[in-house]
């Protein structure tokens, strides 16, 4: 009896209560705001009820299968993606008024959310061991890069960038999948060659880093950067670069690598700025969107209007007008949160991201082997850096680059990938896991 009780994931179950209530109350608010009437029925918020049922079912399934992994990570994700669910439900009718093709946005996102939760469950349940990920490291690396190259050749172009592959009725954003593949490769390679990477050798009076052992890393990274840059996807390039550098630093503890990397980055930025008019335009828009308020600066200006309108408490869900912002459902979702939920809402999103990242790092620190450690830290870094890049762009701390806000922005590939990341993190957190 005691053994059974000890298997029940009480912490997780308790932590799930508040986020799920939030999605139900939030959806009810949105519904009441749209009808301007106090009459409602449970069926009006079936989406949130289904979401609540699904996440509790997953937690209970973890209990049944005797999963002993981290109990805090999943509720944090439920809270963030619950917010994303609310934003999609809220934005879809407003966006559909402008362009009918958005009418199915909420339903699509709901399907992806369901699929994401299922993938998470599948990763935790089916992938009992992560050793095989490590074994096939070059397969992942070449697979990831191959997928991106394939996108360049047969991909579909949207918003001036060729980032998507059409597969039947679906479009896949290949860089989303590749980012996991790359982190798996990096973690495996670093775990295997950790000792060598830290070492130095002497050449005359110089102490040099072990260039032969860094070479595969740099090649792999350089190749993926090339592909990403050729795809005109600066946000993803920045993400890949930061993740590469962070993992190299965490594994080696050598600041010199970071400095060398940042210098290379500086030169790269300088070259890109001088070579591509596109980059110059982005920098100019970042510093002053009002130089061209009807065209190039339009989106940033509208995003600012939304954030400034929100003030401390926000207008309230479904009481603002975020649909004025172009791409509000993907790149600019953070501004929509700022308008309707105010500074409290935006800080809450940031705080939840910090909690998620800290949990990820704590899983990394508790992991048994270095592959698990590096993998957990790398995957967590993806989520952290991605959030910083898009939020930093939205508040104009850095130039804006189109990238999704994890778990909140619309985008199937992004949502599925992020749930796979959480699944892997949960898997790594399992103390029973043997490498």
């Amino acid at each position, binding site marked *: 009896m005691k053994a059974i009780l000890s298997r029940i994931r009480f912490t997780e179950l308790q932590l799930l209560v508040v986020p799920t209530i939030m999605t139900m109350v939030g959806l009810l608010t949105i519904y009441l705001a749209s009808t301007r009437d106090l009459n409602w029925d449970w069926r009006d918020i079936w989406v949130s009820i289904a979401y609540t049922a699904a996440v509790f079912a997953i937690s209970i399934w973890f209990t049944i299968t005797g999963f002993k992994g981290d109990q805090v990570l999943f509720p944090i994700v439920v809270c963030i993606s619950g917010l994303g669910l609310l934003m999609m439900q809220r934005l879809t009718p407003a966006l559909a008024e402008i362009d009918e093709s958005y009418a199915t946005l909420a339903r699509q996102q709901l399907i992806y959310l369901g699929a994401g939760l299922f993938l998470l469950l599948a990763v935790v349940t089916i992938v009992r061991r992560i050793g095989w990920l490590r074994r096939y490291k070059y397969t992942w690396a070449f697979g990831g890069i191959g997928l991106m190259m394939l996108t360049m050749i047969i991909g579909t172009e949207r918003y001036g960038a060729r980032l998507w592959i059409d597969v039947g009725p679906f479009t896949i954003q290949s860089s989303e999948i590749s980012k996991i593949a790359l982190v798996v490769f990096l973690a495996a390679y670093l775990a295997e060659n950790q000792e060598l990477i830290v070492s130095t050798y002497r050449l005359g009076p110089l102490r040099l880093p072990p260039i032969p052992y860094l070479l595969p890393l740099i090649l792999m990274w350089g190749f993926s950067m090339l592909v990403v840059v050729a795809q005109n996807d600066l946000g993803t390039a920045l993400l890949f670069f930061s993740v590469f550098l962070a993992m190299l630093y*965490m594994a080696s503890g050598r600041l010199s690598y970071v400095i060398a990397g940042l210098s290379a980055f500086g030169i790269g930025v300088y070259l890109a700025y001088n070579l591509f008019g596109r980059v110059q335009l982005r920098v100019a828009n970042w510093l002053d969107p009002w130089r061209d308020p009807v065209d190039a600066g339009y989106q940033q200006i509208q995003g600012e209007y939304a*954030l400034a309108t929100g003030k401390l408490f926000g207008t309230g869900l479904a009481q603002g007008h975020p649909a004025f912002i172009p791409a509000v459902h993907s790149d600019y979702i953070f501004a929509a949160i700022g308008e309707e939920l105010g500074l409290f809402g935006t800080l809450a999103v940031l705080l939840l991201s910090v909690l998620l990242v800290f949990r990820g790092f704590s899983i990394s*620190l508790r992991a048994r082997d270095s592959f698990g450690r590096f993998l957990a830290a790398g995957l967590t870094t993806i989520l952290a850096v991605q959030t*910083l890049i898009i939020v930093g762009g939205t508040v104009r701390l850095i130039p804006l680059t189109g990238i999704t806000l994890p778990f909140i922005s619309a985008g199937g590939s992004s949502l599925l990938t992020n749930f796979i990341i959480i699944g892997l993190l949960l898997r790594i957190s399992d103390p029973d896991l043997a490498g």
Partner: protein
Amino acid sequence: MTTFLRFAAFVAALLVVAYGLGETSDQADQRWLVLLAAAGVMLSIAWWPRGTSSLPIYNRTVLRWATLLVVAVTLISVQLVRIQIVESGRIAARSAEVGDGQVVSNPRERLRALQVQRGAITDRHGQVLAESVEQSDGTFVRQYPNIEAAGLIGYYSPALYGSTNIEDAYDSYLSGTDGGNPAQEWINGVIHEDRRGYDLSLTIDIDLQQKANELLAGRPGAVVLMDADTGEVLAMAGAPSFDPNRLYANTGQQSEEEMAAIRAYWQELVANPDAPLVFRPTQGLLNPGSTFKTVTASAIVDSGRANADTIFRDDGLFEVDGRVIEEPNRPDSTQIDFTLEESYAWSLNVVFAQIGLQLGSDTLLDYAERFGFDSAIDFDIPTAETQIASTRDELNNRALLADTGFGQGQILATPLQMALIAATIANDGVVPDPYVVDHVIDSEGKTIEQFSGGGGQRAISPESAAIIQRLMQSSAEFGYASGIEIDGATIGGKTGTAEVGEGEPHAWYTGYAIAGDRRLAVAVVVEHGGPGSETALPIGGEMLRAALETTP
């Protein structure tokens, strides 16, 4: 030591952020971004994980990386506080003109304009000049039942051309965002209570306004009639004018064809060479001609160098530094000696050229500034900056100084400025503070804010003012400004005929009427209207007469 360093770094970061908030004006100002980066470095120092030397390398590096991420999140939070709290009002209200008169502005403000009943604007007797009328769909449309004061009130076109003059300057009252009890406003905002804008009551008398428009009869020009005592503007008309009803446009209220019609009307107004969108009383910069002699006379009298009986010489020609000034205004070509009173009444250019030279540029500029020149008059709506000469140094040229003395040269004045000069003389030497918005009324009819003209600045002594009054009254009795007679009122006036290079000269009249305790001042200009005494003076006379017939 380390603890102190960390604490100092943290305090320094706070100071840098506070300094940046005070010193920079935009959230992506490059200096602000640099300061924020500096604050980031200081926060990293303050929060750098310590006691990590005993930890394995990996734990140490993860901790450090996590610290850097937290610093980044903190910087984003600071930026969010700046955008959403500290400067939210400025950012949300920011707009820009993008050419063609069209503006980019916060669409939420436009929507609010649809949903909030914008306050009405009435004249001093409660006649409605502008109001927002509810439509069947619950939105509001701005209407102008009386367009006699269109230029003064301005237009309101949130979706296309923004707003101007009173509609713009008093927007926070009209839209209900400012003026009431701040606590109540905040509560209303939180509970989404429907807001209603505040009404404005103007000092304008719409009958006088209509009279001014009738007298101008569409000729480019302006009339400004004001109470010289209080600074209340009773009529302020500019011609040609426009119909603000035809410029109103708000998101989703007009069909494509209606929008096209609004744009076409705008294009027509912009293409009109007489510039109907320029509100001449406050924005029209014209040479005031001889009406400026009032300022020159005030300067010579108030500086103690002459009185009404001082004799000046005018033999019909005056030469200064090679420039020959011919006298066109002498009533009798055999008379050579004139008192100041006669010189003013007959508007003798040669005499006032000499007075200008006698005063010197510094004294003349000083007195002109006392009457309000060389700056924009503080008024309810924007006013153009007037000038005596394009630069101060220009007046060191004696020929220009002489021209300036009699009102030619490079002087540019608004009709409001010229009305204030006449008002100052009538008001015993004090320049009244002009105003046109009298009070703000809430939806229950309660006055929530009452404006007044304030005390005004003294330009010349009461004794000097009495002498100038004598000059202006003589001018109205036997000089060029004669011809206005109103029972029970003392009239003083000065005409002007401003030569402007090509075309007919601008016709000016400035004057006042004192009857009992009422003192009214008027300025009239008709562009290219010919002699002031023929074109502008009758309009000024009619305005003063009509104003005295009304009850205040």
